[in-house]
């Protein structure tokens, strides 16, 4: 029986802590256990043996930290990863041979890399996959029985490890995360989110280890058994050691530990072991407590879920709203943003929809003139740095789909597959590999059937084909296609009937609602009513504009009326929020239009500045508004900052208000009418991940009419040089926060001087001083953002 068959049907005993035992066997503090194991194989074998004799079915080889980051090889003064892993696996296999008896299993133990992945840290996702892959390949070749990925406290790193394991061996992959007292990973994911992602990636069992004792992990373990359809295993610490002045030991003794583990068995746990502080004594106690106990049979939980890096969204309960705004079709501004790689615009679009109440965001980057594959993955990564809503990845290109699915942190929606064989052949393998809830359109080689029966029949064929890939109905959501009633007045009825038909098959449904009114006047009226009808017919999700008030009204009212909103709580809070703020009439009456705008900018009132700009346009043209209101207001604030009567946050609030006013004016101006000639490229240098300072400089420069290309943070010198050349930039601004990243700044300046000697460089950041700036050859040192603006103005004058 392989380990997978065993853990599905029977209890499996894992081993306990390794570190503590190795320390008492002589491992010195600060030395890597894997390295020590090379010179002390007898000690490692003895630890394994003691666990096997205590009753462990599975022992984890001493490979927790065995990766190419820690063991880059002899050239770097460490042993080769190959010999480290071979030695560790051999020790475990020798111990199994010595003990004999029942069938035992050796796991290749894979712990975290010790680095945080981007965007929170500096390790690239694909680099993480590569690191794990190296270890997996060696371990599999050594003949281990399973891969045990454990102690993972970040969802994205967990995903990298699982992908590496699945891509490089056929062994069972068991995955365990470390949860804290809040029931979350250190980077935020809860149990539901992790199970959604891991089952999507086809992990063979999911679990929890380390962090806390079994007492404090009870809720996490319970939730795992409630939501996971695969076997669950638990390997807690022997409690939590906290310093209290005495010599503290772990606070859960073996007997209490074992009692708790027996309770876990009753909840439905199949795998039992220990982590920090646990010893063979603990494992023996666990075996004793579980003697004769039968595990609960596995049950299919049949939950349709997607997840982000923090939480999950379940379908089939309350209808789910999918924000449609990040899709260039028919959206001029978004098209421009995509072409100009203006990520800020796209992220704002996402955050606005989140604020408006969307549960999921659709992301589509389909423009013929851009590299969709690169762009889609970039949007996914950037959105996931700031917005915790799950995403729906929307593309017709399989390669773009795969790149985005790989980069995605969680289990996304996949938009879309249809009944065409070619489409299913392309999408299902990706969904099977990365996981996802797939939107299935009811059309095939013959087009869209004009009857509900025809569409339901296509849905049934899609279900059947999906099942060949191991994708079950719960991971498919059917879109029976809303067609406009302006072309055929029966079409809404057909769609609604198809919804009911698919529901009758036990399926889920989704619709792009607004198509129904195409070609009609007052589309919102038609859309909202159709939306209500579709919800009443059983619609589970809608792709819609959450910023359209009518649609949100219909949604909240429907949920309240359909008993999907206990105590009408959500409706009441929605109603309270939608009371709009009234404009400050008194202030407006007292001041002239010019003064009103100036005062709004000086006081840093964003919304009011936009309103005042609108009002000013009634009597002035855009350029005069800029010259007689915005520029003087910015000067007042800028001078205040320089004289230290205005402070940084105030300066920035004014800058944001001026930007809001500009946005209003821009629509009435010819492109570039107010732009200065000087072109500026700015970046935070390689190795530095702090970019607040650089962002401040950007917003101020833009205020003053400069065209700014922002390359972001952690930017390699070559990339900065390339951008300066592409944009013919006369000024390049570089920011660094730490002494350790100044060398990267120096290198960038050196390269710039070499390739673009005409371009001036301005540097800033917490660590820099005039002396430092001189030493690395910068043309100008700006102590704050205003100094950069003044320097840019000086260069502009000289042009």
């Amino acid at each position, binding site marked *: 029986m392989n380990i997978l068959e065993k853990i599905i049907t029977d209890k499996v005993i894992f081993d306990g802590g390794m570190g503590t035992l190795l320390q008492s066997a002589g491992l010195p*503090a*600060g030395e890597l256990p894997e390295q020590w194991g090379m010179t002390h194989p007898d000690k490692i074998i003895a630890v394994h043996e003691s666990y096997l004799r205590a009753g462990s079915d599975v022992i984890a080889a001493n490979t927790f930290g065995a990766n190419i980051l820690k063991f880059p090889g002899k050239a770097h003064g460490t042993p080769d990863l190959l010999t480290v892993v071979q030695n560790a696996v051999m020790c475990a296999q020798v111990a199994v041979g010595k003990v004999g008896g029942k069938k035992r299993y050796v796991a290749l133990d894979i*712990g*975290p890399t*010790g*680095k*945080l992945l981007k*965007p*929170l*840290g*500096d390790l690239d996702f694909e680099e993480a996959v590569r690191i794990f892959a190296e270890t997996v390949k060696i371990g599999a070749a050594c003949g281990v029985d399973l891969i045990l990925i454990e*102690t993972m*406290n*970040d969802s994205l790193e967990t995903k990298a490890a699982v992908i590496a394991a699945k891509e490089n061996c056929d062994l069972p992959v068991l995955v365990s995360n*470390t949860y*804290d007292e*809040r029931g*979350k990973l*250190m*980077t*935020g994911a809860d149990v539901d989110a992790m199970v959604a992602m891991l089952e999507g990636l086809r992990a063979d069992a999911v679990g929890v280890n380390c962090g806390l004792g079994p007492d404090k992990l009870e809720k996490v373990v319970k939730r795992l058994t409630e939501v996971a359809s695969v076997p669950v295993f638990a390997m807690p610490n022997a409690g939590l*050691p*906290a*310093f209290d*002045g*005495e010599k*503290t030991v772990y606070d859960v003794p073996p007997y209490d530990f074992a009692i708790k583990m027996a309770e876990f068995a009753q909840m439905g746990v199949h795998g039992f072991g220990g982590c920090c502080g646990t010893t063979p004594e603990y494992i023996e106690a666990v075996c004793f407590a579980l003697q004769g106990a039968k595990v609960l049979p596995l049950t299919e939980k049949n939950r349709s879920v997607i997840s982000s890096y923090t939480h999950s969204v379940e379908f089939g309960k309350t209808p789910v709203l999918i924000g449609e705004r990040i899709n260039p079709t028919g959206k001029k501004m978004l098209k421009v943003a995509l072409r100009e790689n203006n*990520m*800020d615009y796209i*992220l*704002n679009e996402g*955050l606005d929809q989140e604020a408006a109440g969307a549960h999921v965001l659709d992301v589509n980057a389909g423009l013929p003139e851009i590299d969709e594959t690169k762009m889609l993955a970039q949007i996914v990564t950037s959105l996931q*740095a*700031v*917005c*915790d809503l799950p995403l729906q990845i929307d593309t017709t290109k399989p390669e773009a789909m795969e790149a985005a699915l790989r980069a995605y942190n969680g289990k996304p929606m996949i938009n879309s597959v249809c009944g065409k064989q070619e489409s299913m052949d392309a999408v299902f393998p990706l969904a099977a590999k990365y996981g996802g809830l797939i939107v299935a359109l009811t059309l095939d080689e013959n087009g869209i059937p004009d009857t509900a029966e025809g569409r339901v029949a296509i849905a049934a064929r899609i279900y059947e084909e999906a099942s060949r890939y191991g994708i079950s109905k719960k991971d498919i959501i059917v879109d029976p296609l809303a067609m406009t009633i302006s072309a055929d007045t029966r079409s809404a009825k057909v769609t609604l009937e198809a919804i009911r038909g698919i529901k009758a098959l036990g399926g889920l449904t989704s619709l792009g609602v607004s198509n129904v009114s195409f070609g009609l006047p007052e589309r919102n009226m038609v859309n909202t009513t159709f939306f209500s009808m579709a919800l009443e017919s059983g619609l589970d999700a809608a792709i819609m504009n959450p910023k359209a008030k009518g649609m949100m009204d219909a949604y909240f009212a429907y949920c309240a009326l359909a008993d999907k909103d206990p105590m009408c709580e959500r409706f009441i809070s929605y109603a309270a929020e939608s009371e709009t703020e009234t404009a400050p009439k008194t202030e407006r009456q007292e001041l002239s239009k010019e003064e009103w705008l100036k005062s709004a900018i000086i006081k*840093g009132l964003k919304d009011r500045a936009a309103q005042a700009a609108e009002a000013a346009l009634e009597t002035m043209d855009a350029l005069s508004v800029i010259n007689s209101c915005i520029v003087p207001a910015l000067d007042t604030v800028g001078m205040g900052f320089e004289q*230290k009567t205005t*402070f*940084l*946050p*105030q300066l*920035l*609030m004014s*800058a*944001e208000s001026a930007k809001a006013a500009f946005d209003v004016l821009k629509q009435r101006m010819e492109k570039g009418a107010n732009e200065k000639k000087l072109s500026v490229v700015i970046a935070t240098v390689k*190795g*530095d*991940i*702090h970019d*607040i300072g650089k*962002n401040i400089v950007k*917003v101020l420069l833009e205020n003053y009419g400069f065209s700014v290309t922002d390359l972001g943070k952690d930017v390699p010198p070559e990339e900065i040089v390339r951008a300066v050349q592409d944009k013919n930039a006369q000024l390049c601004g570089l920011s660094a*926060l*730490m*002494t*350790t*990243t100044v060398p*990267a700044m120096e290198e960038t300046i050196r390269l710039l001087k070499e390739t673009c000697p005409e371009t001036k460089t301005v540097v800033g950041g*917490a660590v820099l001083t005039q002396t430092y700036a001189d030493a690395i050859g910068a043309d100008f040192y700006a102590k704050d953002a205003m100094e950069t603006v003044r320097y840019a103005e000086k260069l502009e004058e000289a042009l």
Partner: protein
Amino acid sequence: MIYVHTANSSELLLKESEILRYAGYGTHVPDETELGRIQKIADEVLLSVAPRACCRILPVAVTPGMVDFGVFRAASGQLSKNLAGCKRVLLFSATVGAQVDRIIEKYSRVSPASAVIAQAVGTAAVESWCDLFVSSIGTSLQKEPAYLRPRFSPGYGDFALSHQREICQLLDTSRKIGVSLTDSLLMTPTKSVTAVAGISETDERCAQTGCEACNKQKECLYARG
């Protein structure tokens, strides 16, 4: 033994004046409307913090200009002065978690003013967490009796930043509290601290603490006074 401590965000005491100082207001107090805006962001950040710290107590040998932690040595005049007379040190790392970084990143995309406030709140939060954590260890040590000196971090004065690497490894920070170092020695999540604090057998006040103990006081943006 590495000890792990956690707290609830409600246990952190954030001083408004500290937030304002970190945000660049100096000693200026903004008006009601602005304070309201600051409070709103502070609430959002505080709701997201997950304070964790890990520590161990190590024997230490201090000679002028050199501190020997056994596992590694640090050449630092100021640290050796700070630890003079101590036979043990508390080595710790503390963080308020990753979610704060996401909030800062979000605001830096939509509102730089709010980003400045959010990062100020994050800094005030991790500082307050360090104070709380260190004082609880200090209280436990008093039973011995032993006394804690003010904390001192790599990067302060002449205590080289590169020692973060050794401290993080000794404390297994990545596993215990989710703190790791980038290749350029930045801590991630960014609102994290590593530090040492001397443990002395006698209750003597250290002459200098905080900003006053640092030779970067003049060039530091956030120096007190």
